């Protein structure tokens, strides 16, 4: 067996947070979460909708209909990221410094200002685990992690998966809890690179490694399917052409 790639480890880690999700939707710039959604659906059945895919299995109306489905509760899981994500799971997709003429400016909210409120299991994902990405408080709240009582909020953060570890989010406390460390990561490394306080169990386990069956599936069917919407990713990680 060749060495497990970080991307493969992250795909199976994210998939472990997607139990009981009959419909998972995937947005733009999300090839690893997209692959995880496919893996979860292969294991438990269910539908994956990938915005921008022309694959018949994953194709969806990536315009109005996807948001209508979220509004009705027909989407169980979605993925978001952030230039910054803080300890209350507030996400910042707009930039650093004073709005609007920010020192650093990112793309904008995309669908987050709505989907973060409505999709029950939003998995946050970021490949750079650092204090600049995970500060105590974001510079700009593109979308809040928790809402005041009375705000219609069936959805919200469920987990945060990074290149180092995985956290789950406790909505009642409004805090992250460290669930597992990816192979080769130490607790100290996570603490040194996280700007916010988080809870953790007495002993933090290692993130389970992908099984051989998972790896076979990821490297064949999933790599082929992901090449449509994410050609660059498929080429770089799996050596696949679109």
């Amino acid at each position, binding site marked *: 067996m060749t060495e497990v790639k970080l991307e493969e480890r992250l795909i199976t880690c994210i998939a472990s947070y997607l139990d009981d999700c009959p419909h998972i939707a995937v947005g*733009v*710039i999300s*090839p690893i979460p997209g692959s995880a959604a496919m893996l979860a659906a292969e294991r438990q059945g269910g539908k994956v909708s990938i915005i921008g895919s*022309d694959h018949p299995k994953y194709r969806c*109306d990536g*315009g*109005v*209909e996807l*948001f209508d489905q*979220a*509004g009705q509760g027909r989407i169980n899981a979605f993925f978001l990221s952030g230039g910054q994500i803080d300890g209350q799971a507030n996400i910042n*997709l*707009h930039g650093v410094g004073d*709005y*609007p*003429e*920010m*020192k*650093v*400016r*990112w*793309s*904008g*909210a*995309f*669908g*987050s*200002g*709505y*989907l*973060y*409120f*409505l999709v029950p299991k939003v998995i946050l994902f970021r490949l750079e685990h650092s204090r600049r990405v995970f500060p105590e408080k974001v510079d*700009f*709240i*593109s*979308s*809040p992690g928790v*809402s*005041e009582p*009375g*705000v*219609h909020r069936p959805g919200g953060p469920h987990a945060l998966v990074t290149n180092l570890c995985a956290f789950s989010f406790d909505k009642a406390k409004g805090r992250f809890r460290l669930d597992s460390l990816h192979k080769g990561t130490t607790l100290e490394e996570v603490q040194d690179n996280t700007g916010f306080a988080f809870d953790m169990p007495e002993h933090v386990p290692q993130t389970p490694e992908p099984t051989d069956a998972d790896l076979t599936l990821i490297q064949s069917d999933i790599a082929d399917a992901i090449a449509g919407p*994410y*050609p*660059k*990713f498929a080429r770089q990680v799996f050596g696949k052409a679109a």
Partner: protein
Amino acid sequence: MLILDPTPIEAHFLRMTQYLNSADDLAALIPDGAQVAIAKPPLSPTAIAGAMIRRGIKDIHLITSPTQAYVADLLIGGGCIGLVETSGVSLGEIGPAPRFVAAVKSGALSIKDSTCPAVYAALQAGEKGQPFAPLRGLIGSEVLANRPDYKVIENPFEPGDDIVLLPAIRPDFAIIHAAKADRFGNVWVGGRHELKSLAHAAKQTLITVEEIVDEDLRLDEACAPNLISGLYVRAVAEAKQGAWPDAAPGHYPFDEDAVIAYGAQARTEEGFDTWLNDHILPAVAAE
């Protein structure tokens, strides 16, 4: 080729939709300061955007439905845009949209940040001729805090339930690139239903197409539900490769190498100007 004689109603449509020679002729209909809406890729209206830059159109209020990439960045760098209303501008997997980022940071470009379903809902309100649309989400975000035009009200049917109201969007122009149009003003958009909404919401729609076909697209049951009716279409012009480097499904794929090159080159104003000289401005010389 059989050319159908227009019925009286079709003749009315023929009067409504002008068939012009080029994207430049379409751009000539857009005055400075107009509100112009464009949809997200694929099928971005690159040919019309290039013509707008060549014409030196200024102070456009650009609305992206709901996001954009290369074409918005091009229009911003090309000096056409004074205000952008968007849910996000980036080159996707390739990286940031360099001219958008530079213009927002410097304050040269005003911005109204939104979120995708808010733009869709506001356009749908425009399409229905209604003054506003309600939308879930947004409450507690700084997106909402920076949009004084978005209001929060109590749901009149359920006390204690707050909800956001968005004013309708009725752009002066929608500009669209599509695969084909017929000679009766009908434009086929395939599965891109949001392009129909965009055209319905806009006061006028200007469209470039890969080809103008002789058959009446309304006669084909598979085609008919996916048409922008000529009722909405002010003018059409043929523009082959009119979405490049964006994809036109069925005609050509996304030219990833070109957008990677653009993303690198447009990081500096000088590099962007070279891009304009190489890819956008030559069409003037060709006239």
